[in-house]
């Protein structure tokens, strides 16, 4: 049924759109989050790589410094054991200090032929100076032995007090163009006698170069000291700018170690700094490493594009998928909505129709009942009048015969009216069977007796096959009506000299009664109409009947919770089958009285 059900298409479109938008939102958020994490992960990895590189190089530097420390500490111990050094320091003879230390420290200053990779290189000092017990510098009598130093450079070696442990410092020594920054280590000379630091020795070295194996990658390193940056590979102006950046970072960021990105001459760089001399009495100095970020930024940009491409594809795919999905998800919902709308409409129509029908039925049932009652009385009056006429003696034989037929017709009329009355009661639902146990056998036998008494001259042969007692659930009045209707039909529509067979059996929880006759076959086209009211098929007009019998019988059979059907109808044989519910036999003999 394709009734135009009114379901708002706009609502469905809105629903589907909302579903789609929600799904897309989820996909986009998930994709974006994933991309963001991947991107920042890559960026962090690059930074981490450089940091590892920086740390590794600093570790190499520290290793070299350790060698120096160890060698120098040993040297200081040896010096402290020298009575002459002790004497010079304790007995106030500084002039004798350097000459007496010369031999001991000769190899530290000499050995210019040492190779950079040897430990001796690490201990190859440019100069050395002694600090007295208060940390002040003891000037050597001549620069020859202890290495040449300008006065202001020499005074920068002084410490506020004699150190108790090794102190690393960095000093500017502009006299040396190759290495304007010198790394110095101050090591205390501890009296073997009292355990006191009686003096210190300061050795100046060329700073250890960070490994340059990655120089090809554009890594630059230098030292930041006293607000100045010494990074010879950079232009002076850039050095100045960078130095102030570092100074700012030291106050705002971690003063021990850190990194920040910056730009030098338009090139993006990552700057790492780390204090070279933590816990030192010398001014803080920082190792500065510049790592070029251009490559990694380009890589990141490339990656970003790749990610964006993949992301776009992903979103596109997701769009398609969610479109399909939302369509698929919304279809059943839509169908459901349509169906429910249709159902509602149909139900409403059906209810209306039912109401109308019910009203009509009630009206017609009432009408039929009224009509039957109204008809019954005049028919009775009519018959009484006719019987009275018949009782008169002045009538001719022909008139008497005529009146006899009329009386017979009034009987037919009464039957019709009674049938109608019954049907109308059934239609109005006012007929209710009071179920009891009814024995069919005596009913059939009674009819067979009547049949024998009928003067119709059809000469019918009757076959019976039923048990002596056949109890069914029903009300005797109406059960009788069903049987009478069926048996009467079997007789009426039979051919002269034909047969009637009445068989009854219990089978499958039913009591099945079949009544067959050798009447004229009911054409197939008519078979489905024979149970309708006032249908008489193609039966000749001479057969009495009013077309209500079968209908009445079927309705009554159904009221008995049974069924009546045409079992067979062909040239030879027409057979009806009626089934009843079986019942326990009644305890009294009430069923026998007919």
């Amino acid at each position: 049924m394709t009734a135009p059900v009114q379901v708002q298409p706009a609502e469905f479109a809105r629903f589907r759109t909302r579903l789609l938008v929600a799904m897309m939102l989820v996909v986009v958020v998930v994709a974006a989050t994933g991309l963001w994490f991947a991107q920042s992960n890559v960026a962090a990895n690059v930074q981490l790589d450089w940091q590892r590189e920086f740390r590794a190089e600093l570790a190499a530097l520290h290793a070299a410094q350790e060698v120096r420390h160890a060698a120098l500490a040993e040297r200081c111990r040896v010096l402290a054991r020298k009575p002459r050094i002790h004497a010079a320091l304790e007995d106030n003879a500084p002039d004798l200090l350097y000459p007496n230390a010369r031999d001991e420290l000769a190899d530290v200053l000499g050995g210019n032929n040492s190779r950079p990779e040897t430990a001796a290189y690490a201990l190859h000092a440019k100069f050395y100076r002694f600090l007295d017990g208060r940390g002040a510098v003891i000037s050597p009598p001549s620069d020859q032995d202890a290495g040449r130093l300008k006065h202001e450079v020499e005074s920068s070696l002084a410490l506020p007090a004699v150190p108790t442990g090794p102190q690393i410092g960095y000093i500017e020594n502009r006299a040396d163009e190759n290495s304007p920054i010198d790394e110095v280590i101050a090591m205390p000379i501890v009296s073997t006698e009292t355990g006191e630091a009686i003096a210190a020795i300061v050795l100046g070295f060329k700073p250890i170069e960070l490994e340059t194996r990655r120089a090809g990658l554009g890594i630059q390193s230098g030292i930041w000291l006293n607000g100045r940056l010494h990074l010879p590979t950079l232009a002076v102006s850039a050095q100045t700018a960078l130095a102030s950046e570092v100074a700012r970072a030291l106050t705002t960021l971690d003063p021990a170690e850190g990194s920040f990105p910056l730009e030098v001459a338009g090139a993006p760089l990552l700057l790492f700094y780390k204090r070279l001399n933590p816990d030192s009495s010398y001014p803080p100095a920082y190792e500065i490493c510049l790592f070029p970020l251009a490559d990694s930024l380009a890589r990141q940009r490339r990656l970003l594009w790749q990610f964006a491409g993949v992301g776009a594809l992903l979103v596109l795919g997701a769009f398609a998928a969610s479109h399909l999905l939302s369509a698929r998800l919304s279809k059943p919902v839509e169908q459901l909505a349509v169906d429910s709308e249709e159902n509602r409409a149909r139900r409403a129509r059906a209810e209306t129709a039912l109401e109308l029908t019910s009203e009509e039925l009630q009206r017609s049932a009432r009408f039929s009942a009224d009509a039957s009652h109204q008809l019954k009385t005049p028919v009775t009056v009519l018959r009484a009048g006719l019987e009275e006429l018949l009782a008169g003696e002045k009538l001719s034989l022909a008139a008497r015969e005529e009146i006899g037929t009329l009386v017979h017709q009034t009987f037919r009329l009464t039957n019709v009216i009674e049938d109608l009355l019954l049907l109308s009661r059934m239609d109005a639902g006012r007929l209710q069977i009071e179920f009891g146990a009814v024995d069919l056998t005596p009913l059939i036998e009674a009819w067979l007796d009547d049949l024998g008494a009928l003067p119709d001259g059809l000469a019918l042969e009757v076959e019976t096959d039923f048990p002596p007692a056949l109890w069914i659930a029903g009300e005797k009045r109406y059960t009788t009506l069903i049987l009478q209707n069926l048996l009467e039909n079997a007789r009426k529509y039979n051919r002269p000299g034909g047969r009637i067979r009445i068989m009854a059996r219990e089978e499958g929880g039913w009591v099945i009664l079949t009544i067959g006759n050798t009447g004229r076959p009911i054409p197939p086209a008519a078979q489905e109409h024979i149970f309708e009211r006032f249908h008489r098929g193609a039966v000749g007009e001479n057969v009495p009947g009013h077309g209500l019998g079968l209908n009445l019988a079927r309705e009554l059979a159904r009221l008995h919770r049974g069924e009546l059907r045409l079992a067979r109808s062909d040239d030879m044989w027409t057979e009806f089958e009626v089934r009843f519910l079986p019942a326990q036999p009644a305890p009294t003999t009430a069923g026998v009285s007919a």
Partner: protein
Amino acid sequence: MYTRHLLLFVAIPTLLASPAFAQATIEGRVALPKTHAAPVMNMRYEITTKSGVTSTNPPLAVVYLEGSFPKPATLPTAQVAQKDLMFVPPLLPVQVGTRVEFPNLDDTYHNIFSFSAAKRFDLGRYRADEKPVPAQVFDTAGLVILRCDIHEHMRGLILVLDTPHFVVSDPEGHYRLGGLPPGRYTLKAWIDSKTTLERTVELQNGVTLNVDFP
């Protein structure tokens, strides 16, 4: 007792140098810094330098009278021996111009030297049988720290004084300085390289003056 003997040994030339017998005497006690070192068995002294201050341990004081005294024509030769890797005596006051011998009484080499301003010298390595016995003349007043270049722990002190009147206190700080000429002088007590206490004293013949430091 070894120290007593030592003090006598030091005092004899002083007494001999005095021209007359009716002379003044000073005695008293110098409050010596407390030492936390364990009691020293058989009075072994060591010389320590702590925070730039050199002294004997346990501490000893040298009390001397400052003034202008006539120079003697000859001065006796003093000795600082090296015995059992120690300087003996650990603290020797001498008058300016005294010649001090440094005999090696050990079986090993010694190399005595001094970087002190009052007297710089280096005797080089020598053994016990070295002849003549290495010696130095100390002609500048001041403290001379003796060291051995071979044995880093060996220290000795020679206090060169411009006076013939001096004495080393006993370990408790008691001293007695006799045979002094009358007059007004400055009495000094050397306690360590950075600490010398002083008092003005008025000496009279036959009078024993009691002066405690501080």
